């Protein structure tokens, strides 16, 4: 057998898997297998292919490690930038932007704006002579020009609130504030206690808006004067020694922004009977600041306060609706002009309107608002009357008296007028009824 034949025979056996010698020799070679890391990587790939969120391959982990190495660098850079920003904010430029008290200059700007109102806006309608009412005219605060009012409007109520808390006679106001907080209207009370810069600006804008309205001749309030006079007289008579703290509180409340007045009804409506002075005071204050119906919507909100006050619980805790002039300050507060405005004839019969803002905000701190709590106390002692008109607002009552006169019922009109004088001894009667005998 030649070598070629032998080779062909061995090769044929190799192809037919009969060459066990070479195959067995090959199987004796080192049987190398993939290591465990390689096995894990392949299995992880297979598992991850079915559930991408399940396992991460070592290759992906290596990528993540490389990417994660940059995180500390980025974090450090971000920290440096933040520190530089803070240092820039607190740097010399920022320090020069603060006043001695450390308050930001932006806040002070608002106060300066309040203290130094624009010199323009002279009183467009000169204040009419103060109607004398039982000799109280001399103690009455003179009506101030509207520009002065604008200057006084943004008086920080925080200072006044501090005085309130320190004064012994401020208990009714504290109770009122407590009632507010109980009612959940903490925001409204906070606005009364702390004039934020925004609120101060709002008040300034409100005053300027009123200036513009007065300049346009749209401001009319025939009842403000009467309200001012009657309230002051009643309060001064019942409490000759003014209570500065209460007055300050009243002033601060009067100067409160419109939004707090708008939110007041809800708070008052929810106030418990124990906080009875709160609604009463609210009525008084709302009456004080109530302008006629043709005023802007923001100031008209105070009228809503009074309207809500008519359904407030009285001293007995009853929540039944009652006449708007019931009890409290209604004795010295004229009726809401909204109700009277329908009868133009009756409205015209009232005296000429006083400067509208003089009665509301231009009074000094010891003025009208100081007397309001005392007036409230007097209101509780007001004699009852059997006259059916006693349940009406004084203006309505007087209108009915005029109607009696027109209907030739002079005796009835005189009786009713007498009752009116008993109930409202300090009310400044119109000329046509003042001398009626």
């Amino acid at each position, binding site marked *: 057998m030649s070598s070629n034949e032998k*080779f062909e025979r*061995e*090769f044929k056996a*190799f*192809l037919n*898997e009969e060459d066990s010698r*070479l*195959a067995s*020799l*090959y199987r*004796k*070679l080192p*049987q*190398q*297998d*993939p290591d465990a890391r*390689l*096995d894990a*990587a*392949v*299995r992880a*790939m*297979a*598992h991850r*292919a*079915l559930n991408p969120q399940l396992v991460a391959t070592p290759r992906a982990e290596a990528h993540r490690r490389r990417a994660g190495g940059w995180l500390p660098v980025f974090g450090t850079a971000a920290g440096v930038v933040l520190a530089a920003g803070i240092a820039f904010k607190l740097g010399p430029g920022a320090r020069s932007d603060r006043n001695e008290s450390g308050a930001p200059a932006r806040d002070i700007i608002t106060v300066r704006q309040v203290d130094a109102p624009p010199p323009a806006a002279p009183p467009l309608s000169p204040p009419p002579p103060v109607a004398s009412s039982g000799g109280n005219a001399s103690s009455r605060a003179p009506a101030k020009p509207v520009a002065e009012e604008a200057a006084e409007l943004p008086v920080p109520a925080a200072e006044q609130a501090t005085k309130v808390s320190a004064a012994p006679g401020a208990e009714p106001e504290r109770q009122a504030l407590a009632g507010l907080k109980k009612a959940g209207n903490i925001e409204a009370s906070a606005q009364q206690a702390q004039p934020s810069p925004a609120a101060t600006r709002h008040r300034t804008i409100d005053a300027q808006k009123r200036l513009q309205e007065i300049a346009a001749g749209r401001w009319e309030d025939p009842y403000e004067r009467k309200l001012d006079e009657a309230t002051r007289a009643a309060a001064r008579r019942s409490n000759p020694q003014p209570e500065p703290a209460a007055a300050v509180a009243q002033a601060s409340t009067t100067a409160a922004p419109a939004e707090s007045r708008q939110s007041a009804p809800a708070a008052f409506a929810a106030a418990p009977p124990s906080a009875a002075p709160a609604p009463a005071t609210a009525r008084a204050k709302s009456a004080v600041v109530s302008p006629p119906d043709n005023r802007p919507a923001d100031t008209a909100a105070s009228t809503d306060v009074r309207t809500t006050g008519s359904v407030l619980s009285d001293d007995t805790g009853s929540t039944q609706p009652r006449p708007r002039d019931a009890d409290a300050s209604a004795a010295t507060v004229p009726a809401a002009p909204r109700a009277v405005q329908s009868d133009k004839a009756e409205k015209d019969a009232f005296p000429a309107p006083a400067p509208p803002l003089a009665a509301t905000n231009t009074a000094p701190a010891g003025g009208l608002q100081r007397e309001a709590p005392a007036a409230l106390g007097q209101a509780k002692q007001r004699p009852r009357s059997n006259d059916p008109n006693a349940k009406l607002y004084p203006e309505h009552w007087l209108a009915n008296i005029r109607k009696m006169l027109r209907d030739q019922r002079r005796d009835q009109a005189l009786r009713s007028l007498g009752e009116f004088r008993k109930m409202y001894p300090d009310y400044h009667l119109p000329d046509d009824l003042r001398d009626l005998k």
Partner: protein
Amino acid sequence: MGVEKTDEELMLAYAQGDVRAFDALYGRQRGMLYRFILRSVSDRATADELYQETWSRLIASRTRYRVEARFSTWLLQIAHNLIVDSFRRARPQAGAEETETVMRELGAPEADRPEQVLGEFEQRRRLQVALEGLPSEQREAFLLRVESGLGLEEIAAVTGAGHETVKSRLRYAFAKIREKLNE
């Protein structure tokens, strides 16, 4: 004791989402594939990379798997393509001149030392050296035949070569190894 699933059934099961089927399949094929790759390339690092890449491609194309041949044929075909690509990237293949030189050297008579005298270790070492000295195509065909147990048709399918070409490659490989072992 249930009937053991074939490689093809396991692959189909894995394509349907059965991870355990893949684990079983991997356990069967890992040694054969790794040795085929390791003995086809020069170094272990390349073998590891190609091994992982082979499985990665199999996993990526699992949904396209159809039972048209043995699973090992498909797996080795993937590995073969990667090995060829690796050779193309690494260095030029041995040319015809180099192959003729090897053939001449193998043809030199060394009958003074009978193979029976050599120890088994020496036989394995010679086989290993002979395998490493084979041209890649011949070595691959030999490995597919010995390591994977493929026939001529299957080797042709894996390598993409013709039947006679595969037979010729195997003939050359067999002759060189035989001569190396008989040195």
